[in-house]
């Protein structure tokens, strides 16, 4: 239709006409364009119902022209085959033989010249009837290029009679072509006894792909080249410089436009041309090495590393500061606040103590917090050294820990309600400390504050702890101590600053009432923990926990009601109380352990009505491979901020609608119980715990976007690109 002035219009017209010739009318197994003769070939002359055989598209290409591999390289388009069968049959993807590379100035392409056969495996439908013809139609699309490129399409058809297996005959020509192509398929790397593997390491300016010598029994390697399966993982046009030494061969690769993240695998084929005697052989090896970032390049703040790892790369000082702020914020968390306000109010009633004694209370309390945090840090270091996959909040992955904290919350609640009172000091420490200002009490308040604070990950803490977990032991401990100091700081200031606590209201009945009111958040915390337990251990776990609470309540009543009876009666009652508590813990311990963990996925079971699917690495990989947008949410039943985010942001109708409109798949991963695979992903993003929100935009190899740990609908909506 257009009136374009071409310099060489005749030539263009000729190409244009021929390139758009649909060979459909031919209904033949052969079709030709000026550059390519295409033929549909079969490994057998007949087919057998339910059996597998090979079909192939043989392309004969005129000299200097080429078609493309599964990854065409810098330009070009992959060849595609659209199969149609007279009986629905299963067909594999194209089994790509190893490609060659073509360099045109600064552009490198991967493909085939002269001739290539693209085989597939076909499993004939089992209901194909004897005597009928099995008709296979292939619509083949390719781009053929010399320097200029022409897209072409042909339709090829082949009819093969369905016979009994005894009557099958080889198609010599088809079989030869297909076999020749199958012989050039990439193979697994031959491994010797001491399995030496190909590895991929990050370097200052790219990546080093190392192939140990034992993997290749090469006398003389003429050429070695890595062909990636996916675009953007390496810079395809840059020479892969090889270094050969006693260890093996190292290829220097440069990052492409969609670089690998640490621990992401580089998928592709390593093609080696070897001279064995007088013959030149060419082999392809399928490899899938993970990108390893050497220690020397970690924590390095060059922009290069940041970009590849995407991990929050906090400086040590920043991490310390964030931990401190996080600790201070922990004081406001619903489970910590009541405990600490009671403690603060006790200062009011302790006006008889000297300023010095009060300060010591604060210091001892701080020591209690710091001791608990050191213990936690030590535990983390030990577990890490043991190779365990852990992250912050890991304690809550143990149902035993959850039930113990639930009991503790409940007991503190009972105490606040006035069901029982522990005179002056923590039970079991004797009355000697009771008339002192309760230093032991202060210490254990610190311990208690730490325990009740652990489920509440303050936002600043998350970044600091994520960083801490990747650090050597000393730094890890320092960050934990800084966090603990932050937690202790408000109370410490209160004790150190007499002017401040003189400002506290005067004691009175209101103190008793406040205490009683604060019991209710504790009961709520216990209820929540029982709910967490229900996710972990099912209905039995709930029964055990509630039964245990009744026993604790009974023990509390027994303890309190016998406080003013004779010493003998009181002693036996106390023995009874201790026995009750021990048996509660023991029953919980033995029973919970034997509860099967199968049902634990219940927190994340997707149903048809849900707007999300359960996370699995396979599902994520599949969606990403298809280039579909994905919203990833890693959550846990014991993580309060996760649940809040889901309620206020992710479950909002407009967010659900936006996901739907942009066909975003919402995957939810549950970290309520231990899951090494999820821990791995968290580590990739530099996190040690949940929540983690990541948006993978549409398109392959596109960089994922991390969302903050506090979500609002607008944060989520702004991250998802509007579709155009």
């Amino acid at each position, binding site marked *: 239709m*257009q*009136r*374009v*002035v*071409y*310099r060489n219009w005749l030539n263009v017209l000729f190409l244009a006409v021929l390139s758009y010739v649909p060979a459909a009318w031919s209904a033949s197994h052969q079709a030709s364009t000026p550059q390519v003769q295409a033929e549909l070939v079969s490994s057998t002359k007949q087919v057998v119902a339910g059996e597998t055989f090979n079909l192939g598209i043989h392309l004969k290409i005129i000299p200097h022209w080429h078609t493309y591999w599964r990854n065409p390289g*810098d*330009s*070009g*388009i992959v060849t595609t085959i659209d199969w149609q069968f007279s009986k629905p049959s299963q067909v594999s993807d194209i089994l790509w033989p190893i490609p060659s590379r073509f360099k*045109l*100035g*600064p*552009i490198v392409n991967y493909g085939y010249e002269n001739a290539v056969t693209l085989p597939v495996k076909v499993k004939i439908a089992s209901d194909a009837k004897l005597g009928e013809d099995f008709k296979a139609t292939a619509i083949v*699309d390719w*781009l053929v290029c010399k*320097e*200029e*490129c022409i*897209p072409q399409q042909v339709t090829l058809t082949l009819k093969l009679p369905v016979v009994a297996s005894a009557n099958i005959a080889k198609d010599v020509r088809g079989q030869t072509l297909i076999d020749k192509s199958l012989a050039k398929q990439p193979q697994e790397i031959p491994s010797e006894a001491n399995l030496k593997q190909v590895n991929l390491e990050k370097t200052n300016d790219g990546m080093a792909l190392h192939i140990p010598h034992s993997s290749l029994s090469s006398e003389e390697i003429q050429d070695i080249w890595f062909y990636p399966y996916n*675009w*953007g993982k390496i*810079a395809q*046009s*840059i020479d892969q410089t090889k270094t050969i030494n006693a260890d093996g061969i190292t290829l220097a690769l*440069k*990052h*492409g*436009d*969609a*670089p690998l993240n640490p621990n992401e695998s580089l998928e592709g084929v390593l093609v080696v041309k070897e001279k064995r005697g007088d013959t030149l052989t060419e082999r392809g090896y399928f490899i899938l090495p993970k990108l390893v970032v050497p220690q020397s390049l970690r924590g390095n703040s060059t*922009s290069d590393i940041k*970009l590849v790892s*995407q*991990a*929050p*790369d906090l400086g040590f000082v920043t991490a310390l500061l964030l931990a401190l702020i996080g600790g201070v*914020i922990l004081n406001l968390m619903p489970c910590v606040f009541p405990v600490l306000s009671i403690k603060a109010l006790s200062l009011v009633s302790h006006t008889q103590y000297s300023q010095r004694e009060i300060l010591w209370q604060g210091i001892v309390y701080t020591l209690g917090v710091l001791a608990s945090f050191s213990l936690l840090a030590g535990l983390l270091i030990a577990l890490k050294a043991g190779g365990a996959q852990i992250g912050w909040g890991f304690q809550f992955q143990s149902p035993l820990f959850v039930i113990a904290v639930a009991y503790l919350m409940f007991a503190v609640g009972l105490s606040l309600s006035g069901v029982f009172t522990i005179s002056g000091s923590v039970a079991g420490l004797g009355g000697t400390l009771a008339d002192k200002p309760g230093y032991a009490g202060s210490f254990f308040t610190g311990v208690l504050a730490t325990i009740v604070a652990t489920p509440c990950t303050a*936002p*600043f803490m998350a*970044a600091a702890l994520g960083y801490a977990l990747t650090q050597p032991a000393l730094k890890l401990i320092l960050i934990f101590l800084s966090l603990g100091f932050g937690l202790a700081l408000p109370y410490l200031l209160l004790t150190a600053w007499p002017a401040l606590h003189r400002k506290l209201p005067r004691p009175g009945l209101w103190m008793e009432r406040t205490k009683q009111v604060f019991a209710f958040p504790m009961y709520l915390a216990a209820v929540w923990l029982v709910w967490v337990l229900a996710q972990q251990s099912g209905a039995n776990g709930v029964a055990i926990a509630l039964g245990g609470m009744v026993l604790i309540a009974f023990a509390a009543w027994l303890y309190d009601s016998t406080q003013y009876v004779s010493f003998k009666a009181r002693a036996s009652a106390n023995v009874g109380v201790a026995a009750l508590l021990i048996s509660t813990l023991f029953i919980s311990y033995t029973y919970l352990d034997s509860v099967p963990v199968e049902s634990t996925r219940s927190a994340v079971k997707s149903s048809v009505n849900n707007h999300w699917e359960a996370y699995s690495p396979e599902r994520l990989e599949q969606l990403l491979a298809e*280039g579909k947008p994905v919203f990833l949410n890693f959550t846990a039943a014991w993580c309060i901020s996760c649940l809040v985010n889901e309620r206020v942001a992710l479950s909002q109708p407009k967010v659900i609608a936006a996901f739907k409109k942009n066909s975003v798949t919402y995957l939810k991963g549950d970290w309520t119980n231990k899951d090494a695979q999820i821990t791995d992903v968290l580590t990739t993003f*530099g996190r040690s715990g949940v929540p983690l929100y990541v948006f993978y*935009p*549409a*398109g*392959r190899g*596109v*960089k994922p976007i*991390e*969302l*903050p*740990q*506090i979500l*609002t609908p607008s*944060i989520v909506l*702004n991250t998802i*690109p509007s*579709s*155009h």
Partner: protein
Amino acid sequence: MQLKQLIATSLVTAAFSFISTSVFADPVVDQPAPAFTGTTAVGGKLSLDSLRGKTVVLEWTNNECPFVKKHYESGNIPQLQKDAASKDISWVQIISSAPGKQGHVDGATALKLNETRGAKPAYVVLDEDGKIGKLYGAQTTPHIYVIDAKGVLVYKGGIDNIPTAKKEDLAKANNYVRETWVALAVGKKVPHPSTKPYGCSIKYPT
């Protein structure tokens, strides 16, 4: 609730500052776009600096490439160019085909071609020695680069996400140029700053 707001704001800032830019083959997204001065089809000179203050689109082209034809004959690129003009976005068409190779044209022919195709780029730059193309690492026709008003490269890659020469695929495709414009207009992060370019290879001098 100011504290909560403060926390949320800091977090958003922190989270986004970790999504950093890349260090690969030049040029780099989120970095200043390489400066160039080229000869235009009307015989003048065009320097990238002179376009500072406006969004700039660089489009590598070759009128004989089937992929370029897909986007011109369907009216896709001409429409984008018209929309660019109405939004005060400078659309620069760059032809890097070497003399004697496919797509190499002189200035008059280039202008004539655009007229017959209904194409209205703001500028046509003739880059027959391939210097600008190589400076930008341009590989295919079409290959698109978007530079913001501050001269920072914000997008490089394909024109859309369906790498075929078939016009019927345009309806289903996600046009990355429009997507980038929308993001720039509302001050959002460009959703796909670097994508796979597709098309014919650029016919650089050998």
